[in-house]
């Protein structure tokens, strides 16, 4: 089956301007990433700040044009689409942002915010749009009393629901959610995670869920991709990645998550070092300076993303390839 969305060697390099002596330097925010997202699945994209996960999501929507690689939707190459074809494409691909207060116009009411995509795409009349707005509010669990309110009159959790309703207004089949729960309180976060899980099933959505919080990804996604310095270092079925992480970085990341159980204290092996700058990435495997398994080859050659177990790809020289051995 053709994946709904896939990318091949997708890159987003930002040139740094104003460097002394006219030196040219580049931020490798996203660097030759391959990823396929099957229809109806939810893929979690995790990584620390600076890993390029947000840039990847935005490049996928072509909010800025990629500097390299191809983007396919339903098998069709849509890279570089602009004008009407891009608008048609955007009807199918929508985004939910991290900070709901920053993602909406404070001078518009909730109803205006939600129905704005419909207005932009000239769908329906103002009356039918309002009716649709009420439907959407209902869909995300808000009563129609919210239509006339302004963003400052609703709570963060409620406004994130508004952001989700807006993303759903054009009946997209693909949603990119960029840390949609990061700014929410614990008791509200669960509500929004459940809402996204319900909507996925009810509307048959395909989801790319970007997060630094593995436990949230664990609830929502079937597949997990791990990003480090612009590269996907590991991708596989959720249970595989969680229970048998193969890349040393994924292992470090998983072991660093504090567990909410005082009987499971294990802060004894915090991973070494910090994530380097995406401008001066270490040569070879970008993780090698922090990696306990680093070998000579790691300092020289970037390892290819290879199948190491069924459906489970890893970019690491130290992990034996599939079927060779049990790791």
């Amino acid at each position, binding site marked *: 089956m053709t994946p709904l969305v896939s990318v091949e060697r997708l890159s987003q390099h930002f040139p740094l301007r104003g460097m002394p002596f006219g030196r040219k330097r580049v931020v490798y925010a996203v660097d030759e990433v391959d990823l396929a997202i099957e229809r109806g699945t939810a893929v979690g994209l995790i990584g620390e700040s600076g890993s390029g996960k947000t840039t990847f999501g935005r490049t996928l929507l072509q909010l800025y044009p990629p500097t390299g690689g191809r983007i396919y939707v339903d098998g069709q190459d849509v890279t570089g689409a602009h004008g009407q074809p891009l608008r048609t494409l955007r009807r199918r691909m929508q985004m939910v942002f991290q900070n709901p207060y920053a993602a909406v116009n404070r001078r518009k009411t909730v109803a205006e915010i939600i129905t704005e995509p419909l207005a932009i795409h000239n769908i329906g009349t103002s009356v039918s749009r309002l009716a649709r707005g009420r439907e959407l509010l209902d869909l995300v669990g808000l009563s129609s009393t919210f239509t006339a309110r302004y963003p400052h009159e609703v709570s963060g959790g409620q406004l994130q629901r508004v952001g989700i309703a807006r993303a759903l207004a054009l009946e997209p089949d693909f949603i990119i959610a960029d840390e949609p729960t990061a700014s929410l309180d614990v008791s*509200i976060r669960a509500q929004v995670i459940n809402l996204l899980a319900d909507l996925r099933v009810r509307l048959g959505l395909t989801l790319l869920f970007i997060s*630094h919080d593995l436990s949230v990804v664990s609830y929502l996604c079937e597949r997990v991709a791990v990003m480090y310095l612009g590269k996907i270092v590991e991708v596989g079925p959720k249970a595989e990645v969680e229970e048998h992480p193969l890349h040393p970085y994924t292992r470090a990341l998983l072991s660093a*998550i504090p567990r909410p159980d005082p009987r499971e204290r294990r802060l004894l092996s*915090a991973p070494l070092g*910090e994530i380097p700058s995406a401008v001066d990435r270490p040569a070879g495997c970008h993780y090698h300076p922090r990696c306990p398994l680093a070998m000579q080859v790691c300092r020289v050659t970037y390892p290819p993303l290879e199948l190491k177990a069924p459906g489970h790809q890893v970019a690491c020289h130290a992990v034996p390839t599939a079927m060779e051995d049990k790791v």
Partner: protein
Amino acid sequence: MPWIRDLNDIEQSPLLDVRGLTTRFPSDRGAVHAVEDVSFCIRQGEAVGLIGESGSGKSTVLRSLLGLINPPGRIVSGEVIFRDRDLRKLGEDDVRRVRGGQIGLIFQDPVNAFNPSLTIGDQLRRILRLHRPGLPAGGYDGELRRMLARVGVDTAGGSKLNQYAFNFSQGQLQRIMIAAACLGGEPSLVLADEPTTSLDVTIEAQVLELLRDLRRELGLALILVTHNLALVAELCDRVLVMYAGRLVEDADVYSMFETPKHPYTRQLLRSLPRFPASGARLESMRGNVPDLTGLPPGCSFALRCEQYIGAICDTVCPSLVPTSTADQRAACHLYA
């Protein structure tokens, strides 16, 4: 776990005794009751987590302890007894010597906690000058290098001291702030306000490890303010749970996670995403955190409570009372 002291051995007067602390902020819609009648004790060497959601008043409690409430906000009443002295009755000069000297402070955002126009060395030297007058003049830099080395900031060549905050990564700045808080003066208590919230998970783990080791080494008591229950599970001996400006539960860390008594604590723990996921769905808490300007007369959690027992919840505000479990108190009519 050798670093957890047997609390029953310590029968001396508490290090910090907070009684009836109440802090309010005026607003257009009436006074915001940020902290209402909060009382608790911190024993010598004890690590206590102060948890709650945004707006629960946990950071305001921390700031009130040190008199760091900016007008028009005001500490309306309460006593803050630290080593047998009420900090609220001390003059500003004396409080300043306590603050940063006997009580260390770690803030959430290390980037903004430093002055961007002074070198790191200058800022740290000021701390030593104020709190360690015994150091010989000119002996500061050696001491600073020792402090930074202890928290894992490499000072080879000494040039790091002449650099500015923007020359350091967030993780390094947080380590420097921890050095200032734990090693700058001679503190017996360290207050940390969301010390790892702005950090990535691998850096967070490093910072927590550092904090845990320093605490063990120096026998420091700690108040860790956080919304992240996992940090409390990792680091603390006891937990104080706040909701809508009030303390609703006070328990040792194991009881809090295993037999939570207050319905809010119970519901909060159930809505926590576990890793790996415990099931297909999270249990979510209905409703929102109440508005602190117009709190109802009864229990402020009544509207969201699954164990609502009737009119008394709407009319009488419950006070913190002992429950069936030793060393665990809850503010709920279930235990009245």
